[in-house]
């Protein structure tokens, strides 16, 4: 879990990775669609974490 949190944080908080205009997708500059894409990715990672843990309540 901690690793996943680290992953999402890392890919989003290290800005030079994605602070660029190209490649453009459907008219969206990279800076915008990259961050929007991380919304479903984080949700899926969190869901995998949920599936793989023991539930005590």
């Amino acid at each position, binding site marked *: 879990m901690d690793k996943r949190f680290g992953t999402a944080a890392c890919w*989003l908080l290290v800005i030079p990775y994605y602070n660029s205009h190209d490649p453009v997708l459907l008219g969206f500059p990279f800076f915008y669609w990259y*961050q929007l894409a*991380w919304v479903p990715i984080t949700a899926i990672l969190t869901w995998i974490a949920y599936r793989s843990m023991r539930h005590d309540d």
Partner: protein
Amino acid sequence: MMTDIDPTALSVFIFFLALVTVMGFVAARWRRPKTLAHIDEWDLGGRTFGTWITWFLVGGDFYTAYTVIAVPALVYTVGAYGFFALPYTIVVYPFVFMVMPLLWRRAKDHGYVTAGDIVHGQYGSRALELAVPLTGGIAAMPHIALPLVGMTAVVKALGLHGELPLAVAFIILALYTYSAGLRAPALIAFVKDIMIYIVVIAAIALIPAKLGGYANVFAAADADFKAKGAGSLLLGGNQYVAYATLALGSALAAFMYPHTLTGIFASNSGNTIRKNAVLLPAYTLLLGLLALLGYMGHAANLKLDSANDVVPALFQTLFSSWFAGFAFAAIAIGALVPAAVMSIGAANLFTRNFWKAYVDPQVSDAGEAKVAKMTSLVVKVGALLVIIFLPTQFALDLQLLGGIWILQTLPALVFGLYTKWFRAPALLAGWAVGFFGGTYLVWDAGWKPLHAVALGDVNFTVYTGLLALAANIVVSVILNAVMPARATARA
């Protein structure tokens, strides 16, 4: 922008507001408990909310009318930098997933209602019990007031003037919250969120088509920023650290507020919270797309008095009047839900950590519910007066400071879930350093939440809240290591 009264838009608007008013009063009977005269029932809905109710409630309370108005307004003005709300509301959910189920378990097992209860239970310190909820109370105040800024913007767009419409809506809200407690905003949140989803999906699908596609929207904004010489589609090199620390700091602070904690504590299990950490990002997607309305404002060549008008003006120019009325109703209801939850959260703090702790320790369950109900009324009237009589800038500055303040309660509230090593005096000292140090840095920077740091010959700006939190943790750790263990008093 137009300020003539449009009868169609106004009728649709009034219809939906009347609808939620009825729902608010009916809510007292919804999932009817044996009694509403118990603080758990009135302010936590009996801790029975499952995945979907929690999703609507937390979503409705975390993404407010202010967000709908202010995020696009910031993006309209400064560009990429305003987009930090997106990484902020992404990074927050893994944090919720890891920490909040543990906090919920602690609250459920001991019957705790507030952050102050948890801290008192953990450390047995009245001083810390007072510091944490006091911070929460002050930090929540501007959050209660600011959604009204969103509401003011749409009321103005409907052509209504003066504070009367705002006051009427708020008094009705106060009355049904008084009678139904957390059940009222939970029920209304369904309507509000569905309306907001419809509006935003329509907006992001239809508006760009009218404005020549997204490529054109971005190009128009870029051209405007270059002509103005302020704002930009991408971050400047000196904004990197500020953007990242603002996102991370806000994410850590988000679920320390009394209103977000109220939503968490009202859920029925830790798994409900975990599932919500998976599902709530749907709102984040909404927020990200909504932020782009700021750029659409440039593409539509709007002439605005205030950046806060960008969303209402877009709807008014590009949508038919009935749909504009529907959108405005969605935003106005979006102001009512969080205001209700926040006033309930603030009322809990007062009741549990002040009234019960100092005034009447023997207070009965019914007595607690009564005090909380009265307090929620006072809080709402207070917020209304702040918006009517104080300049909006005051609420904005206070909100900014509130984010920094609330972050300082994180060590006391969260560290105890993982370790018993920390003791109250060290945490209290850390809190004080973070709280007052952070406030000083913000004041020193001319009420800006960013602080310039020089590391060798590298200069960058950091979110002050995160700096203050670091100082807070360092002080807590050092003092705790240095102080003799017998100073401990665990209740």
